[in-house]
């Protein structure tokens, strides 16, 4: 097994999927993940992420391309022979069975003996701290408890790959955050490979080794959470992950790593040339709100801004500004005890940001 560590464990090779023969839901998907990775497919609804998961699980067939698991093509292998554990959005706990019977089911269909089954069920229940609930029915459990049982059931037969389809979507915020850590720890302790589907970006950033951002049937970017946030490669990713200020403009000149962008009103700013075309083409400059400071700074871009709104949020103050006609420009001011750094609504001020914090991306 150690020898395979570098090889792709799960692999999508030029996979396409169409339901109606007219439009493609998944367009040319290429994805390889090593054993033991926690990969999240993140994207808005209808972006094709769940379809990908279902193709991997075997509930949808790929219209074109190959899906490989452990080096073998699994396109024609029925779901029950793939040995993939799956956690469903609504948990799909069998309502006519007790928790023990639910967990015992995958072991029974594998023809495992009674003693071994009981031992495994008990171990799996203990793993999710639900050891005392074995004789309950799913309907007698709370949402969070059902979630744990669903997790235990997907893990009880020791699959190497576990798929999770928005498993925390139905839980309240606090429980969801708690379960995120539990799933993350289970993944670390058991060394399993996880493919996780969600539309919640904070969930994706918290749990994953790598995140694949889906939109319109295409992976927009596949990167670690920090890369995704710090170095988005296109405007969709910058927009979808975290908060983002964008300034529309035209490329004036490209020199090496950086680009000079002409903003409306004639001002210019410098940004990293990430995803721009020839001089004269449209571009969007993306700057994270926490990377902008109020006031002028050495060796940085600066701009005139008018304060539109100040919102007190406890740990920081959210300041909405009008910058070059864009009145959705957000700056986060840390609450350091000094009252909102003396700003008031309607006042004009100067803001500045470093060139390497501004990324010139494709126009939306």
């Amino acid at each position, binding site marked *: 097994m150690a020898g395979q560590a570098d090889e792709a464990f799960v692999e999508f090779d030029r996979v396409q999927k169409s339901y109606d023969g007219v439009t493609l839901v998944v367009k040319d998907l290429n994805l390889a993940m090593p054993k033991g990775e926690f990969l999240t497919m993140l994207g808005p609804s209808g972006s094709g992420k769940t379809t990908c998961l279902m193709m991997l699980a075997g*509930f949808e067939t790929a219209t074109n391309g190959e899906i490989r698991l452990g080096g073998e093509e699994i396109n024609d292998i029925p*779901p*029950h022979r793939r040995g993939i554990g799956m956690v*469903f959005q609504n948990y799909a706990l069998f309502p*006519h069975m007790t928790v023990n019977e639910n967990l015992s089911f995958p072991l029974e269909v594998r023809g495992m003996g009674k003693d071994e089954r009981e031992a495994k069920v008990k171990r799996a229940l203990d793993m999710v701290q639900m050891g005392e609930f074995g004789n309950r029915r799913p309907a007698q459990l709370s949402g969070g408890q059902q979630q744990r049982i669903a997790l235990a059931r997907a893990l009880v037969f020791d699959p190497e790959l576990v798929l999770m389809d928005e498993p925390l979507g139905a839980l309240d915020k606090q429980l969801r955050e708690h379960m995120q850590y539990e799933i993350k720890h289970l993944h670390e302790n058991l060394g399993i490979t996880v493919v996780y589907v969600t539309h919640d970006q904070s969930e994706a950033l918290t749990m994953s080794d790598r995140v694949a951002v889906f939109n319109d049937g295409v992976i927009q970017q596949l990167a670690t959470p920090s890369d995704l946030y710090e170095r988005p490669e296109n405007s969709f990713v910058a927009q979808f992950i975290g908060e983002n200020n964008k300034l529309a403009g035209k490329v004036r000149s490209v020199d090496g790593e950086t680009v000079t962008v002409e903003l409306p009103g004639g001002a210019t700013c410098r940004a990293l040339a990430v995803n721009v075309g020839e001089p004269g083409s449209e571009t969007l400059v993306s700057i994270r709100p926490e990377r902008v400071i109020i006031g002028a700074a050495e060796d940085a871009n600066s701009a005139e801004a008018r304060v539109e709104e100040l919102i007190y949020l406890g740990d920081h103050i959210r300041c909405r500004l009008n910058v070059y006609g864009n009145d959705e420009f957000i700056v986060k001011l840390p609450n350091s005890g000094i009252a909102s750094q003396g700003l008031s609504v309607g006042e004009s001020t100067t803001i500045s940001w470093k060139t390497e914090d501004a990324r010139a991306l494709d126009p939306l």
Partner: protein
Amino acid sequence: MNDTAPSPQAAEAALTTADGRPLAVALAEAQSRARRRAFLLVLPLLAFVLITFVAPIGQLLYRSFYNPAFSDNMPALVQWFKENPAGTEPDEGAFAALASDLKGLRANKTAGIVGTRINYDLPGSRSLFTKSARKSKKLEPPYREALLAIDEDWADPLLWRVMRTASSPWTASFYLAALDRSRDAEGNIIRVPEERQVYIKLFVRTLLLSALITLTTLVLGFPVAYLLATLPLRHSNLLMIFVLLPFWTSLLVRTTSWIVLLQSQGVINDILVALGLIGEDGRIQMIYNQTGTIVAMTHILLPFMILPLYSVMRPIDPSYVRAARSLGASSWTAFRRIYLPQTVPGIAAGALLVFILAVGYYITPALVGGSTGQLISNLIAFHMQKSLNWSLAAALAALLLGGVLILYWLYDRLIGIDNLKLG
């Protein structure tokens, strides 16, 4: 643990409203207005059901064990039976009472009624009464000889035994008859002769055919209900219309169209002959026998199976079967262990509905059943309309009702009535 916890009764008793009334009393008072209003809302229907349904059925069932035809019209003989214990040889006094009653029958023109009543238990005795009543004017003592002169049968001990039984309006003899039993001269319950045993055979046939029809509707209806429940709503609505279509067509039309299809000169036989699968003289008899009853009733009762099944299947999330598949179950195992158990309330409701409807079905077997496809309800109708033996019809109906109630009870024990889902 029970020792330390306060008992629930004590806790309840302690609860009172702010002004000191017990909580339960206050709650009942607060709700009584709403309850009265609810009762008034159902009152019209309740009255309707009581007057038009419960009362007539009760009246009819009452007839199955209460028949005053003999006791009302033969007062003297009833008196004699009362004074002399069972087993007493009919003496001159008995014949004198009989003669006086026969005169009464003649005067009131009720000999037929009494004769019919005795005829139920002792076939062929109706004419004995009508003939003797007609000639009763000339009867003179000694009555025994005089009556025996009219007909030797008056000496038959079985006749006297039957008349003694009939002298009380309360009788179990219709139930005995409905179970192919009667009493001999000594009063022992015996089976009636082979050629007159019809009812038990018919009860058994009714139950077997109903069970078979229930099974065929289940086998045919399950896949349709599954399709209805899993197709996209757009398509399933159209399919649902096809399922409901029979409800918009007259029962008579549907049954007669089966006659058109199945009869020996009918569409199916014609096609088979045209295809050369059977010869002209080998036409298959598919109607006016049990086959006809089974085919037509299966078709007619199919929606009653499909609809409860559908209503149970529709909300079953497809992810259950997917989960089972991902956990390693083949599609057959996933169906058997996961899907099927969740449809049990629908199967139970559909089966119960179809079975109970089938057990009491009347018009279809009457039209397409021939002689071998008749059900018990056809015989009940026969006794209601043709033989006018309402008491026997009532006894048969009561037995049928009792049987269905027992099945219902069994169902409750095995599956649980609260598991029933009709829609």
